[in-house]
């Protein structure tokens, strides 16, 4: 009998390895730009907090159950001297105990679950709440501020410490909107207006993308959220509401002309011009953005030129076709688009 238990004691290495593995797994948590475990706002914090509660309870159950399994398997290993073990059929009291204990554990999880559902689902209202409509397209995100008259794409700006009420919709297929560090995700379904709210309590840049398979470039449908100070946000709003003046720089002016004469106007809107298309992103203040092509690329002149040269080549399946632009035309367009601050 002694040697059976000894087996376990002689293998502390196994426990150390397992603990090490668990530590390794957990150590990677909360460090990435799209991590759900580094919340920067109250909604995200509450949800991540509930996640952590359940996670650690699961770790305890894991250690107990796996430990019991390992112990049992080793302790009752067959030895040649074994006869037939006692043919025990069951134990009613044990059955009751190991039914009730899981139910109690689940109650501990269920109560905060329901209260968190309630708080996340109660959309704040009133004059202090910023309203944003999020519309998913194949494969970019549109952001509209109905009370501010702003339409933009790829990035959403919100003031710090302010409740933001989002209405999430889709223009084509089902997408899913998620900025992990601020709140949980919700689907963008055509013909539905799904509502959620979030709040950013840290100033900074937060990453998000589409989480529901939506076609060829599902992986390339990303966005950024900028949580700004009240002053910066107000400045941004003012800039976005302004109609850009026609460009004075000759290269940019040439680009404006090319833009108006080519197919661009059929899909894009630039306020103050004849471009009134709504199929593609609104480009009125394109110059002030930090990313392009559904936040797939950083907005650099080189990336923009690469995009204009062959959109489907950069983003497979892109609805923006290859327009066969020459390098000169691209250079001018880049200058024009950069000027749209």
């Amino acid at each position, binding site marked *: 009998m002694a040697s059976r238990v000894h087996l376990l004691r002689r293998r502390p290495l196994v426990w150390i390895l397992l603990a090490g593995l668990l530590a390794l*797994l957990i150590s990677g948590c909360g460090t990435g730009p799209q991590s759900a475990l580094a919340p920067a706002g109250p909604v995200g914090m509450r949800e991540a907090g509930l996640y952590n509660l359940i996670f650690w309870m699961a770790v305890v159950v894991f250690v107990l159950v*796996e430990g019991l399994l390992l112990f049992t398997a080793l302790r009752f290993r*067959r030895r040649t001297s074994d006869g037939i073990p006692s043919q025990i059929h*069951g134990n009613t009291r044990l059955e009751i105990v190991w039914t009730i204990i899981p139910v109690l554990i689940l109650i501990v999880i269920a109560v905060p679950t329901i209260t968190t559902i309630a708080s996340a689902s109660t959309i704040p209202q009133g004059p202090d709440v910023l309203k944003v409509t999020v519309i998913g397209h194949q494969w970019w995100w549109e952001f509209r501020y109905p009370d501010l008259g702003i339409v933009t794409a790829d990035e959403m700006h919100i003031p710090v410490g302010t409740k933001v009420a989002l209405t999430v919709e889709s223009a084509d297929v089902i997408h899913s909107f998620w900025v992990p560090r601020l709140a949980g995700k919700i689907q963008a379904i055509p013909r539905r207006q799904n509502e959620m709210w979030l709040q950013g309590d840290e100033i900074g840049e937060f990453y998000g993308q589409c989480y529901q398979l939506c076609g060829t470039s599902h992986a390339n449908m990303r966005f950024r959220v900028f949580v700004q100070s009240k002053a910066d946000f107000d400045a941004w709003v003012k800039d976005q509401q302004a109609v850009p003046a026609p460009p004075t720089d000759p290269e940019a002016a040439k680009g404006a002309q090319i833009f108006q004469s080519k197919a661009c106007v059929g899909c894009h809107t630039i306020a103050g011009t004849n471009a009134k298309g709504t199929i593609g992103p609104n480009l009125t203040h394109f110059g002030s953005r930090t990313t392009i092509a559904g936040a797939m690329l950083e907005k650099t002149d080189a990336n923009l030129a690469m995009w204009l040269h062959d959109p489907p080549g950069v983003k497979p*399946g892109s609805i923006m076709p290859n327009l066969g632009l020459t390098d000169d035309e691209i250079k001018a367009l880049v200058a024009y688009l950069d000027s749209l601050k």
Partner: protein
Amino acid sequence: MATAEHAATTHQPDRRRYEGIWSWIFTVDHKKIGVMYGVTAVCFFLIGGIEALLIRSQLMFPNGKVVSPDQFNELFTMHGTTMIFLALMPLSVAFFNIVVPLQIGARDVAFPRLNAFSYWVYLFGGLLLNASYLFGGAPNAGWFGYANLTEVPYNHSSYGIDFWILGLQILGVSSMAGAFNFLVTIINARAPGMTFMRMPLFTWMTLVTSFLLILAFPVITVALVELMFDRLFATNFFNPAAGAEPILWQHLFWLFGHPEVYILILPAMGIISDVLPTFARKPLFGYPVVAYSGVAIAFMSWGVWAHHMFSAGLGPVANAVFSVTTMLIAVPTGIKIFNWIGTLWGGSINFKTPLLFALGFIAMFTIGGLSGVMLASPPADWLENDTYFVVAHIHYVLFGGTIFGLFAGIYYWFPKVTGRLLDERLGQIHFWLMLIGMNVTFAGMHVLGMEGMPRRIATYPPGMGWDTWNFIATIGAFTIAVGMLVFIYNFFASVRHGQVAGPDPWDGRTLEWSIPSPPPPYNFARIPIVRARDPFWVQKYGDAGHGHGRVVPMPVAGGAHDAEEARADEHGEGIHMPDPSYYPIVAALGLAVMLAGVILTNLILGNPPGTQPAWPPSWVAFVGLVVFLYGIYGWALEPVSGHSS
């Protein structure tokens, strides 16, 4: 009483006896059909595995260029569809086929020709689904095919979705036919004295799974018919442009989909509920509780479907209700785990490969179950849903759970089917490679998910914190592949040169171990009378386990009146087994061709995908109809051959 050699005669009149490959194609013997299911399922498992290796190769590094995004979408769609419908479910059915009649003391299933038909329909459905690769592209909208991405406006560059609809509908016919068969068999064909509470647990789970199959498949059939009508005939069940709600598809799919995952796990739970007692030499602890937990899980599985839709915006009431029902279903599942550990406790555990896989099942399924509880809370789920956290969860329960359970069954029952044991050393190597491989692959995916990596993305940029675990996961995937190579080698080597097993290599507890390995065509020369649970064990050791393991003769139905009659009965003379028949395969072929002829009308007529209306159907449909009608007409009126002497 088991004898080492069985009668050479097949008891069929000459005109209905087939040799070689034809004896397989026209067989109605549940054991042969089960073997065909098993071999075919493992082949599809390997195909699904290759699709997985391609996926993991593409995701090994950021900005991968192994496959294009469209190809990637096809790969994960086919990986999921293949693994679930063409590998895991049919492998379970292989065991239903081979094992259940033997466990209940029956000579075959209730409807042998329907059994053969189910297999051929499955094979043709699986081949048609995979043919999509050759005809312009495989389905690409995920194994769950959410509308309206599957509708023509957003999916018309290939016929892939049409192939997907066709494949699943055909497989649905196969699954339902099989389910009816096993249901009737278990209810009607149990040996005298085998009450429900004396059935082996695997047979119990087969019964419960069959009920689930019969009730769940009509739901997806309806959904697929509606999608088919949208694509072929311009109806608008899921088309938002015409005022429909695409979320309807999600409801229908998951109402099927959640019972489906219990269809996937319950058979494996049944297998290990038989394996653990055998290798611990103790009865299943809490047998009635384990059996009723399975029944409870089956009932409750109908009330949880919307936990797949927590982020679809159903509202706080729906989310809260489904959260509670989902948490509740964890209770019977946990109860089973404790009862399995209770089976091992106080036992005398023999660490053979079936037992290793059974232990692996408990360990891995516990992890998957715990991540399931983490998914049951909607606020936590809003952080986990559609990320690699869910990929980790599903693979812990389906790979660590179902696949480990199925391999336990393969190592356990291979000697019964072939008469030879699989090599034990190679089995252990296979087990450890799979256990280590799957943990290396899927453990880190929990982290990937919480770090925000979405599912179903063809690539990812560097700098997201996802590089390391993706790299490691790919290493793990190839480790699993090596394990599978070891198994395949073991399989072929053991079929030919494996150690001879005899009727009872494991000192088993249930009836299948009381007959020769491989069993004669009629299974039992004399149908046994069952007087207890674990009847064979009781026969060997008595109720309290005090016997010496000598096999004493089993009481049999219709006792012989004298020694000579008893001898004759032992050789199986006078037993009439169902005749082989070619109508099942003919009917299966006709059905598959007919459905293909309707659903693939555009492909056959050379119209672009999504051309509407796809009516009238192509000529292929009418050929298929004729063959199908011939098949069932012949089946219905096929004469039974005369009784043998």
